[in-house]
């Protein structure tokens, strides 16, 4: 991106305007579709403006970890697919994709919104392992928030496959769903100059001085945090960011409650 556009974005933000005409605290139009893929036990297609991702849930029977013999396993993984953006390359996962995976994972894990005990089939022998994969089709910023939102939608609508004598029959799905007790929604608030924005595009992301991802459970409680960016945040910044994130999270949470 050339310097002129960077300067233009920075200067406009000072006046409270963004390149695409949004207000600083405005999300792009959010579109959510669930049950979109035949091979996944749960799936979601999420669009924030032009940014588009798939989230898929796969379930498998596995032996539990020895230290948690009656807990099922939940894992979230996000990949920055080279298909989705010219900046991404093939090869081992970049640090950005690892961070996105871990922040989304942490939000869901620490919220205890999924009761891992309910995923146990036989203590010490067999538990459900739930893999949630986030795959961007068109990457245009804000993967953590989109992925966290999509992951919950896919988990909430997933249905367990049938267990047979030979293992799992992936062609037969039961009506049993994963019990989701809370809806932990990550919102990343970005600081560019003195402005705080949400839902950054790729261009805006490249200008971030600092960012804070706040995963909240409801209007009062937070279950995960991640600060990023090269510059520090003041106490006042953090207060304002938390307030903004929780407000935005409740907008997204409403869409999930309807599922």
């Amino acid at each position: 991106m050339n310097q002129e556009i960077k300067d233009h974005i920075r200067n406009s933000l000072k006046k409270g305007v963004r390149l695409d005409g949004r207000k600083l605290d405005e999300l792009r139009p959010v579109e959510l579709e669930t049950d979109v893929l035949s091979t996944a036990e749960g799936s979601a297609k999420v669009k924030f403006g032009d940014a588009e991702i798939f989230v898929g849930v796969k379930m498998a029977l596995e032996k539990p970890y020895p230290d948690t013999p009656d807990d099922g396993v939940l894992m979230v993984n996000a990949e920055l697919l080279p298909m989705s953006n010219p900046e991404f390359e093939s090869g081992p996962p970049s640090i950005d994709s690892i961070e996105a995976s871990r922040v989304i994972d942490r939000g869901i894990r620490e919220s205890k919104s999924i009761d891992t005990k309910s995923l146990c089939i036989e203590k010490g022998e067999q538990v459900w392992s739930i893999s949630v994969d986030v795959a961007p089709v068109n990457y245009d910023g804000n993967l953590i928030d989109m992925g966290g939102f999509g992951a919950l939608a896919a988990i909430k609508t997933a249905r367990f496959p049938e267990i047979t004598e030979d293992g799992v029959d992936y062609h037969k799905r039961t009506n049993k769903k994963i019990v989701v007790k809370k809806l932990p929604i990550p919102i990343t608030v970005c600081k560019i100059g003195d402005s705080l924005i949400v839902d950054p595009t790729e261009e805006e992301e490249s200008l971030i001085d600092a960012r804070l991802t706040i995963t909240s459970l409801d209007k009062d409680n937070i279950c995960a945090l991640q600060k990023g960016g090269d510059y520090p945040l003041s106490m006042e910044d953090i207060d304002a960011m938390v307030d903004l994130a929780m407000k935005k999270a409740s907008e997204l949470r409403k869409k999930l409650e309807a599922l």
Partner: protein
Amino acid sequence: MTKFKRPSGRKLDEPRKIEAEAGVIKKADGSARFKIGDTEAYAAVYGPRDLHPKFLQNPKTGILRCNYSMMPFSGDGTRVRPGPSRRSKEISMVTEKALTQVLDLKDYPNAVVDVFIELPQTDAGSRCAGICAASIALADAGIKMKDMIPAVSIGKIKDFLVVDLDGDEEHLDDNEAADIPIAMIPSTEEITLLQMDGIISKKDLKDALKLVKPSLIKIAEVQRTALKKKYEVEGEK
């Protein structure tokens, strides 16, 4: 001979329902989505762009580089581990060969045209769907091409030749079904992809190549329509 009834109710030479769309990935220089039955492929083209490492560069022409990949939740059974496998590397290679033959990249010495193919869901025939999507995406990116490349599989189940095997059919007959993915240059009727697993007679192979042709021509038509649709001007239909 008794008639063979396909599990899907399709006629023997009938491919599954096809959807195609060009320009679906805004960040890419060219892109497409191609769906045949429950097999869906996205393809994005980036380039021509600088090729690194440098020793791969060809001063006479640009090169095509394809990357086929299944999304982790796109498989029939358990999760597919992300990252390359022997299978995905081979498919990437044959995809590249299937497409290179109609491309002219001489205007871009030392450069690469990258094609990334991702499948969010599969139900057999994924390499063919990938080639179909990639072909539309390359045209959408404005790369010089002699023709569109359609691809589909033809198989043999219980002594019957059938076009475009789906997952149910692949598992019929104790997995004895023969499966032949084919890509063709429609204008010259030359074949650019041909693989097979299973057992088939010499005669059946000849018949199969003949039987699959109308489906390939139909797919090429769908591919072209998708491209035209992207550039269609309102009220000029």
